[in-house]
């Protein structure tokens, strides 16, 4: 097991190193010099040069890459070109919106998907199953930003239950902050719930055909008891994988939803930074998101190997 963990750990480190190289050089070849962008088209060449020196843009690419990676390893993400504040601080600020939003959305999606998936699997082929499956087909097809607009139309403009956008801030109290995250979380959660419910249903259906399920029935458990005691636990493996993937997706994928609701989250930060050519912010946030995805995958792999020793010999 230790050998397996080390091997996966090494592959994690290599992936991260390659990812950092790719991110740095893709953004480097981008046209548009941040210094001249910041100063506008009428800037004197020597002013631009001075700013380039100040931002460290006159160093060689290799120096800047090593400086960037070295800084990140010690928690120093550099200084934003446009806001003149430490990038780490900006990211931490935005995390207080994006992370709760992702957790909120994931909780909602799980709360919807589990009962729906279990219900559909238990009534396979019956009208209840078809209704749930039809609803999930629709859920997968709806663009979340459009769904968000409809939610705003109904719950903010017509019913006035929620604000149409913006974030109250945690200093206004937990309730107010959560209230401003509710519509965005629903908009994010519903398409995810549709996917999760489908996975849950098909995982359960696979399990229902297994020998141990027949044994469970044969020893006198009802269908429902067998499903709850033996079926669910075994169906959790594919379901947890999808939940892991969805979490990292929600963290990054909220970018458009944050635009719809004017939420000051990570996605909006990246979006604004891209438009302002604030390269250091873009690089750091993208790297952070990639790090989140790769680490989640790594943890999922480890969890599998712990549960199922057969997997350790593979890869």
């Amino acid at each position, binding site marked *: 097991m230790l050998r397996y963990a080390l091997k996966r750990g090494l*592959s994690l480190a*290599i*992936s991260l190193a*390659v*990812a950092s190289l*790719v991110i740095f050089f*893709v*953004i480097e070849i*981008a*046209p*548009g010099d941040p210094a001249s962008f910041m100063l506008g088209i009428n800037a004197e060449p020597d002013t631009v040069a001075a700013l380039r020196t100040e931002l460290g843009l006159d160093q060689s690419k290799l120096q800047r890459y090593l400086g960037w990676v070295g800084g990140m390893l010690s928690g120093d993400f550099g200084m934003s070109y446009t806001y003149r504040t430490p990038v780490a601080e900006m990211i931490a600020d935005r995390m207080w919106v994006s992370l709760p939003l992702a957790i909120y959305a994931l909780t909602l999606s799980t709360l919807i998907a589990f009962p729906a998936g279990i219900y559909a699997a238990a009534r396979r082929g019956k009208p209840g199953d078809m209704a749930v499956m039809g609803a999930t*087909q*629709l859920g*997968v*097809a*709806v*663009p979340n*930003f*459009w769904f968000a*607009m*409809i939610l*705003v*139309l109904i719950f903010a*403009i017509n019913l006035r239950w929620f604000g149409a956008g913006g974030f109250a801030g945690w200093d206004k109290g937990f309730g107010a902050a959560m209230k401003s995250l509710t519509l965005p979380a629903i908009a994010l959660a519903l398409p995810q719930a549709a996917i999760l419910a489908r996975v849950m249903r098909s995982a359960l259906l696979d399990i229902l055909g297994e020998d141990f399920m027949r044994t469970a029935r044969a020893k006198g458990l009802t269908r429902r008891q067998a499903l709850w005691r033996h079926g669910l636990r075994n169906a959790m493996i594919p379901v947890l994988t999808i939940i892991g993937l969805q979490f*990292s*997706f929600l*963290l*990054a*994928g909220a*970018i*458009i939803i944050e*635009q*719809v609701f004017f939420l000051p989250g990570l*996605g909006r930060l*990246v*979006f604004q930074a*891209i*438009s302002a050519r604030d390269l250091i912010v*873009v690089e750091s*946030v*993208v790297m952070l*998101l*990639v790090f989140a*995805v*790769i680490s989640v*995958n790594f943890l999922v792999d480890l969890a599998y190997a712990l549960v199922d020793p057969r997997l350790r010999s593979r890869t």
Partner: protein
Amino acid sequence: MNRNLILGLGLSCVVVLAALVSFVWTPFDHTAMNIPAKLQTPNGTHWLGTDHFGRDIFSMIMVGARTSIAVALVAVGIGMGLGVPLGLAAAAKKGSLLDEGIMRANDLVFAFPSLVIAILITAIFGAGAINAIIAIGIFNIPVFARITRGAALSLWEREFILAAQVSGKGAARISGEHILPNVANLLIVQGTIQFSLGILAEAGLSYVGLGAQPPTPSWGRMLADAQTMVSFAPHLALIPGSAIVVTVLGLNLMGDGLRDWLDPKLRLAR
């Protein structure tokens, strides 16, 4: 044919037909502004109403279908064109450095937040349909590479491949002549699914202003324009959104239906 396939095929055909017809006929010129007739709800003259410039929404939806289909289709083409050969090569040289390299590169692309990268690419290299296609297409490559490799690996164990090897065919020829035809079904199904994801991605990029640029109509941008007017003209948001949902739903149903229809095992089971 099953119910999903018929319904999916029907919906998809309507959208494709609307896109094709828009080349020769639309009820109105989709760029023609008519301010006195602005913000009309659906009526006899303007079947789906008009927008804030008095443009005919039905015509815009028809032309917008063109943009969506073109972007998603080429993005799937990029994914298949590069992903399938990579997957075939990886499977043919299973366990080699090439295989390992291709699969690790795939994992890496998967780890990147696709939407952020797509926004990055379009923002850096300029907003527009071509860059949107490339941004969406890149993320299709690993999907096709992985699915091709997975299916091809099990085929390489089969007797008919051994027979081909004995008859002196090389790995490249076997991949092209024997493996590819046998994974084609799988690729068609996955292609349909990626196509629908491409439509959603294009809509998202256009919505944030990074997809097709004016005057090319696109469903995503129609939604972005509608956002500030949703309180007094909800049809501006409801119609393009429904067009996206119908298209994606049709493609997904078609994908599901095709999978059942093309897989003889599932057909027997029914």
